[in-house]
């Protein structure tokens, strides 16, 4: 497996097909936790690591269990099960092993199950037939892309708090319009790599 292809996948997943700005997944979390920089960073770290592990786990289950047994039609149910089970166990293990880390990141862990990206990545991996390393780098790229989006948005929204926004647009509406402008900037990345 050439390293170049993996790197291309990573760039494509994080910048060109950024999940938030071009595929619009994970918006609920995106708007929910981008109010403060601190929470945004915490969420980014937790999210990226969960993303990579769940991409790897669901690849193993998909190719080693589901394809041989010919039950790929159950993929939605099984993937959501894997993610939920993994998040729950990570939560329990973290609480025991490292309470300080749990205190900092535990809140985000619970939120992650409701994030659609976490389900979309295994589904896309299965649909495109990526191999193990490709699946992982796609997962990592998606995680980093989400982290990037979250950090950009949080830094803008912290400034927005002080701005004089017209009353009907305060809160979410202006956040949406800001996201639209960032998204416009991200269109500039399209065509960076041809896959």
């Amino acid at each position, binding site marked *: 497996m050439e390293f170049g292809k993996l790197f291309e996948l990573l760039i494509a997943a994080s910048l060109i097909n950024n999940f938030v700005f071009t595929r619009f997944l994970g918006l609920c979390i995106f708007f929910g936790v981008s109010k403060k920089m601190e929470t945004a960073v915490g969420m980014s770290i937790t999210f990226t690591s969960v993303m990579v592990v769940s991409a790897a786990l669901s690849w193993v289950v998909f190719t080693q269990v589901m394809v041989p047994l010919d039950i790929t039609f159950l993929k939605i*149910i099984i993937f959501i*099960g894997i993610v939920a089970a993994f998040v729950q166990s990570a939560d329990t293990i973290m609480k025991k092993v490292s309470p300080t880390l749990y205190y900092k990141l535990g809140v985000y862990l619970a939120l992650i199950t409701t994030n*659609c990206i976490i389900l*979309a990545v295994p589904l896309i991996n299965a649909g495109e037939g990526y191999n193990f390393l490709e699946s992982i780098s796609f997962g990592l790229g998606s995680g980093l892309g989400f982290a990037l989006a979250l950090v950009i948005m949080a830094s803008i929204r912290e400034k927005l708090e002080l701005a004089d926004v017209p009353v009907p*647009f305060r809160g979410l*509406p202006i956040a949406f319009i800001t996201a639209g402008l960032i998204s416009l900037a991200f269109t500039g990345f399209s065509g960076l790599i041809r896959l």
Partner: protein
Amino acid sequence: MSLIREKGNWEIFKNGIFGENTIFRMAISLCPSIAVTNSLKNGITLGLAVVFVQVMVNVTVSALRKFIHPKIRIPIFMFIIAGYVSIIDMVMAAYAREAYREIGLYIQIIVAFASIFARAEVFASKNRLDKSFFDGLGMGIGFLLAMIIISFFRELLGKGTLYGLKIVAGKPLLIMILPAGGFLAVGLLMGFFNWIDIRFYGGKGASGAA
């Protein structure tokens, strides 16, 4: 939520469409509102899929509410939702190939919709079958209406067409069907509904609070 329990079916139905409209009021399940609203057809297709899933999930959860142990309710709700989504997914893959190619991923993502889970948890697990049915119907149709409104504007401005028919001549605003246009359209519509709320009903702009 205790007030809602005394309401009639019609009020429950209306609550989903206006009072607690998923997109414009509660501001949840936003991902599809932008992803598939670049044409009216896609918006309506996904909206109908959501109506089906929401109603069926509410009915099932309500029917089984006495048997579901509260401690394991979350995974059970998840599996009920995933089951109905799989049905829709496979039906669409078989009979609506054209639409499935464009919005198939988002159909599968319905599993992770906060709104469907929220209604199962907040309403269906505590209420009678008929009430849950109307709650699901109202919520689903409220979502469908929001999708129609957003995709109406985006397709009209972005392509100059409606449901594939040419309406406006001349050069369309390409930005509206680009990803960025989705965010802008939802932001502006939300602001508009807030403005109506503040101007005519003396509200504080519900979706601004989130």
